[in-house]
């Protein structure tokens, strides 16, 4: 019998991605199309236009790469939450079209849960505490009583948004995170910035304002330079993330830590999380970059986990939900 395959569609923000993945976890193909703004941030209407122009092309490329026909697909999965409404809709509509055209089941997937599930698959990790850091989310989560519970999260802006916004202010193009990492690497002069941890939650908006003020100060370029501000910003923000992760680790007593999301690529953050993992005797894994950022393979994989546990959704159940929290969703495939 031939192995069944799922086609996963990721469409929550600036990445339109299609992944084809086998029911055993083999990834046959993964094709991404990313909207990169010429200036400013992600404008939903412009992203929508790009995705609408390209979505069929990317699906075809993914099929071609996997060397299969669209009729070899056995299940469609798509991201239904959380994300930007107009963009979620495109993924949902493409998925509904395919499921009706091909007469195969459809599964709607929460994007944040997909990040954890692909990490568990790729890193062969069982029951981790996950630090999920990206442009849209900053969440410390672990599985407990049937759900991926949120132990800590940002109270205002996500870490990736902090880095991207700051980068934009200093004239660096999107994505800003890697560029700030390079600047920070050239300094070791720490300037005092607000460090805001509330229980296991974090706040970055005051830090952003304070970092911006450092650039407007009369001492800027006299007593300190841009590298020093980037360094201080990164050190403060990442120390906050590491502290809440360590708190959640002590609280949940998990034995594994998973680092994922776009900001997981940052070497300094990896180093800090690795340090606390070692200190608590926990195994540390970073999701491979290809699967740490937004991707269709994670949606496909999570879709098939749900499908195998409780079957597909009806088309009526595939409504998008831009504001759904991951801890509102039960996880029937664990325990």
């Amino acid at each position: 019998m031939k192995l069944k395959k799922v086609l996963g569609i990721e469409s929550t923000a600036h990445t339109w991605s299609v992944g084809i993945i086998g029911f055993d976890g083999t990834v046959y193909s993964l094709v991404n199309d990313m909207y990169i703004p010429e200036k400013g941030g992600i404008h939903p209407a412009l992203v929508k236009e790009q995705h609408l122009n390209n979505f069929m092309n990317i699906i075809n490329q993914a099929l071609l790469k996997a060397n299969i026909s669209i009729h070899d697909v056995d299940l469609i999965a798509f991201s239904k939450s959380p994300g930007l409404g107009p963009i979620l809709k495109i993924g949902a509509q493409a998925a509904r079209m395919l499921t009706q055209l091909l007469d195969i089941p459809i599964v709607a997937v929460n994007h944040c849960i997909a990040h954890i599930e692909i990490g568990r698959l790729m890193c062969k990790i069982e029951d981790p505490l996950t630090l999920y850091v990206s442009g849209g989310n900053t969440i410390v989560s672990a599985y407990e009583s049937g759900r991926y519970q949120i132990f800590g999260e940002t109270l205002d802006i996500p870490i990736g948004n902090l880095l991207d916004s700051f980068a934009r202010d200093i004239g660096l193009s999107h994505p800003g995170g890697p560029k700030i990492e390079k600047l920070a690497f050239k300094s070791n002069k720490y300037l005092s910035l607000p460090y805001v941890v509330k229980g296991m939650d974090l706040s970055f908006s005051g830090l952003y304002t304070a970092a911006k003020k450092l650039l407007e100060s009369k001492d800027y370029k006299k007593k300190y330079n841009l590298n020093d501000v980037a360094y201080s910003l990164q050190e403060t923000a990442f120390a906050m993330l590491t502290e809440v992760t360590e708190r959640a680790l002590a609280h949940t007593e998990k034995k594994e830590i998973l680092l994922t999301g776009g900001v997981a690529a940052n070497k300094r953050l990896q180093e800090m999380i690795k340090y606390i993992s070692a200190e608590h005797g926990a195994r540390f894994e970073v999701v491979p970059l290809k699967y740490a950022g937004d991707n269709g393979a994670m949606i496909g994989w999570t879709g098939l986990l749900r499908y195998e546990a409780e079957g597909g959704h009806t088309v009526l159940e595939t409504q998008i939900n831009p504001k759904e929290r991951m801890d509102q969703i039960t996880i029937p495939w664990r325990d």
Partner: protein
Amino acid sequence: MIDGIVIEKLFHKGAEASLFYGHWFGKEVIFKIRSPKIYRIEKLDKKIRIIRTLNEARALIKVKNYGVNVPQVYEIDTENSTIVMKYIKGEKLKDFMHSIEVDKKKQIFNEIGKFIAILHKNGHIHGDITTSNIIITPIQEIFIIDFGLHNYSDSVEDKSVDLHLFKRVLLSSHGTDYKNCFDAFLGGYSTEYGRAKVNESQEIIRNMIKIETRGRYIKKEDRK
């Protein structure tokens, strides 16, 4: 080692500090030591450790005067970011939860609510109310510990956040018990707070519900 001060064994390794059991001039004590965090750069690390040590010790001393059960502070050493405090024999509420009846739980959470109301009435925000930071002694006295994230505030917002964080911990760690426990907690809180200012405690609780709806991706919490 100074005569009379003996650090005997590691008692608990927390996220932020290590607790050592020992003796201090004949008294059973806990040495709460905030060791350097190597992942943080030294300048930031030292600042955080000194501020939190001083802040926690001062808070413990102050709130004890209001009648809240907290460990007695014996000595503060900012250089080594260490607080020496009375050893409280007992069990963490987190571990104690599953071994008690619903009625007893309600009673305990009611008492906790009263203590938190006393803190809030007097302008103290605990900052990290969790079931790991509450100790139940063998004679079932309740002690509030770990004032590491304590701050001073009289704003409704800060008090609401304090309650909100506790609610979140109950939801995520003790889902099935959440409703009984949190209702009892709010009951105790309102009763104690209300003696002075009924309206304020109601405003704090209302604002706490507002905070939830303000959070990222949240609908009103509708779990039973």
